[in-house]
């Protein structure tokens, strides 16, 4: 199929060879699973079990709260030993609400889980509902609840489902392995999602540095005219939804909009696999494939990991550390985040655990910007990163916003190429965070003001009502004294009602 060339981007050394030939392996259960209730974008789930309760694999642990949320299920059978807070898989290392489960070693599925033989007979809403109930979120790392994206049909005119198998981050191989080993299941999930979205066209896009995955998908899709397999050029950040869709369609989704604005919805292969499991077998999302790799890992591997497994356990299962890593990363090296410790659990969005040596990270002391423009050429969003950073350093955040700060997808291409080794993304992230905080503060201020005004209006109205009541009583007394009939007292209610907005 015809592909379109994105602007910018970089060609980092892919380092996938460390783990790409290692089949997905199950791991022995750890002693404890720490299952966070916030593993997704949105509101944390609400505990549905109590301490001491025994659960089977797949039982509901916590239910979703609101539309943008996802429930959490038991990754294995065992006993709930704690409902409290535990350090999150997040660079801050802050604690989040977490349910701690002690596996009983039997790993027995709940009997209540039933799948359907013919998901294509179900109405689209029902598929979305089951996907939501299974706690499935975007597993490429974005962790947006998948069901919400399946329901986009209600608001957008959709025509194409794109499966993002680009896996453009260096090192990661979990999607590659999953596609190679379970292409039938992945494709089944893809078709179920297409049915839910009501689209007749599917493109499975895989970077050309994964020929085996491409071949596996082609084989699985033979005879299905609605499915196209696209071999993408290997270029980071091909996996950015908006850039992927541009590559495939030649159309840019509007700024601050969604790819759905141009009729396309993008999902990840691991999400498709989870949808297959949920619809065919009734199984909620309780495990995922994680790539454990990096030069500091003794035996890089692709592991099938129950959610809530501590990172330390994965490293142990990969032969331990060969040397002390310079950086321990969750996710890929380009957009991943540093892990605060190895105690933190694997969550739905964890696609990789990277133990990188100093040589791999190649960090140097930053020098002044020499305005070489490498970052401008590398930015896939058409931004001028050096200026965003100059404004940020000059504390002119509004200026940075005018230059497109909020259009930055945080891909890191700019910082990757910068010969001065300036941590551009760090400044940009700081500016974005600061603007978000200001937005919240402004919102809070407006809200406070509104509430204060409401209150004073109420007080004012109450005072006026009191005054009028007194005046009326006075008049009544006078009237009584003069022997006349009192006027009707309805005015009181009317004034009060008007004063309330």
């Amino acid at each position, binding site marked *: 199929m015809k592909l379109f060339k994105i602007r910018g981007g970089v060609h980092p050394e892919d380092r996938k060879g460390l783990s790409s030939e290692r089949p997905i392996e199950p791991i022995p259960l750890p002693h404890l699973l720490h299952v966070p209730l916030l593993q997704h974008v949105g509101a944390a789930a609400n505990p549905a079990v109590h301490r001491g309760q025994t659960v089977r694999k797949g039982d509901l642990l916590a239910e979703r709260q609101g539309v943008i949320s996802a429930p959490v299920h038991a990754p294995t059978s065992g006993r709930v030993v704690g409902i409290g807070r535990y350090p999150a898989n997040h660079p801050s290392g802050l604690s989040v609400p977490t349910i701690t489960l002690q596996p009983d070693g039997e790993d027995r599925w709940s009997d209540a889980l039933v799948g359907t033989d013919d998901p294509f007979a179900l109405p689209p809403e029902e598929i979305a509902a089951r996907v939501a109930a299974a706690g499935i979120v975007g597993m490429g790392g974005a962790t947006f609840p998948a069901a919400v994206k399946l329901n986009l049909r209600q608001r957008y005119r959709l025509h194409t489902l794109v499966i993002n198998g680009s896996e453009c981050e260096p090192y990661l191989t979990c999607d590659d392995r999953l596609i190679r080993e379970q292409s039938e299941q992945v494709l089944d999930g893809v078709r179920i999602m297409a049915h839910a979205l009501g689209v007749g066209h599917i493109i499975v896009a895989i970077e050309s540095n994964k020929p085996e995955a491409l071949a596996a998908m082609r084989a699985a899709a033979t005879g299905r005219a609605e499915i196209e397999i696209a071999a993408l050029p290997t270029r980071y950040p091909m996996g950015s939804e908006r850039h992927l869709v541009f590559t495939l369609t030649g159309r*840019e989704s509007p700024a601050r*909009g969604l790819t759905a604005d141009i009729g396309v919805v993008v999902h990840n292969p691991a999400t498709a696999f989870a949808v297959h499991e949920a619809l065919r077998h009734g199984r909620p999302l309780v495990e995922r494939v994680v790539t454990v790799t990096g030069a500091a890992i003794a035996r890089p591997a692709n592991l099938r990991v129950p959610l809530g497994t501590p990172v330390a356990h994965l490293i142990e299962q990969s032969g331990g550390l060969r040397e002390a890593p310079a950086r321990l990363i969750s996710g890929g*090296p380009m957009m991943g985040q540093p892990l605060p410790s190895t105690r933190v659990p694997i969550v739905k969005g964890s696609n990789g655990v990277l133990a990188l040596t100093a040589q791999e990270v190649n960090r140097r002391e930053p020098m002044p910007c020499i*305005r070489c*423009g490498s970052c401008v050429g590398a930015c896939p969003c*058409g931004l001028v990163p050096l200026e965003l950073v100059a404004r940020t350093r000059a504390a002119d955040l509004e200026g940075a916003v005018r230059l*497109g700060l909020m259009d930055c997808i945080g891909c890191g291409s700019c910082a990757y190429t910068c010969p001065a080794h300036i941590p551009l993304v760090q400044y940009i992230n700081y500016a974005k*965070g600061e603007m978000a905080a200001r937005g919240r503060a402004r919102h809070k201020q407006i809200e406070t003001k509104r509430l204060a005004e409401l209150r004073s209006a109420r007080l004012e109205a109450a005072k006026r009502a009191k005054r009028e009541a007194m005046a009326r009583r006075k008049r009544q007394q006078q009237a009584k004294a003069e022997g006349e009939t009192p006027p009707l007292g309805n005015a009181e209610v009317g004034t009060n009602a008007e004063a309330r907005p």
Partner: protein
Amino acid sequence: MSALGDPPLIAGPFAHAPTSIGLTMRLVMLALIPGTLVGLWQFGWPAINLFVVTIATAILAEAAALRLARRPVRPYLLDGSALLSGWLLAMTLPPWAPWWIGAVGGLIAIIVAKQVFGGLGQNLFNPAMIARVALLISFPVQMTTFVAPTPLFSADAPDFLGGLAITFGAQTYDAMTSATVLGQVHTDLGTGLTLLDILPSTYQLNQAAIGTVAGSLGETSALLLLLGGLFLISRRVISWHIPVAMLATITLCATAMHLVNPNHFLNPGYHLLSGATILAAFFIATDPVTAPVSARGRLLFGFGCGLLVYVIRTWSSYPEGAAFAVLLMNACTPLIDHYVRPRIYGRDRRGEPLAYGEDNQGTTR
């Protein structure tokens, strides 16, 4: 932000391209070596002396300025930017100029044109070109006295001691002086001659390509400089935009004017191969610090440089205009960067989000 608090203090990427400022500078120097060697060889010991003095002064000035500003000396010296500035300046000097031309030039380039602005990355103008223009205006005689090539160890070439005498003594070498072709043409056209009379006696194009003509120390060998420039483009140290736009503009202007009056206006070959054209297009106008950062901005910048080079050479009182042209365009760089930006993904050129029709079938503008 998420419920998890402030953005991380440490952000990715946790991988980095094998680049550094030092590497960039070293690649530029590598690309300069062939052209430089030819220059040093054909202008002999005086040229070598001048080259060494200029670079040494630039490095010492940088070290002194860094120390004065209490900045770390080592990392900034090791990045090679001062060495490169000195090198480029030396390339543009008359090869037999006295030592103090190189020394004063080196000081101006580093102290006045770079460190006063705040050091690496902060200067508005190309340091080597500032120095070159300042010298030209202050010492017009020394800066316009060129010599015919006398290759090292050839019969007419000064030996080592002779070279020292020329560079550091006051020994005159009137017998050796020779005008550059642009200089000669400029002077002779002023006396009412036509190109038909002037050219045959002064110049062979293929000589200019190889570099065996009178000229600045490192500007004469157009071919080797071009090869160096292409090497830089292939290694992505510079982008093609500035050199291509600049050379194309010079070619266009020269062709047009030559067609109008071949007796008065040089054909484009002379403009491309003589003087500082190639050195300026690939090594000086492309100085990252003082050029625009976007591709379209660079095209505009290269166009401006080319146009100014042609205009200054043809109609001003100076026979060569590359230094002035680059400096004038340097002054425009902030303006260009302000107005010429890449289009942001998902927005039109005005910055508004792209709008698609009802059918979702729109195309990008």
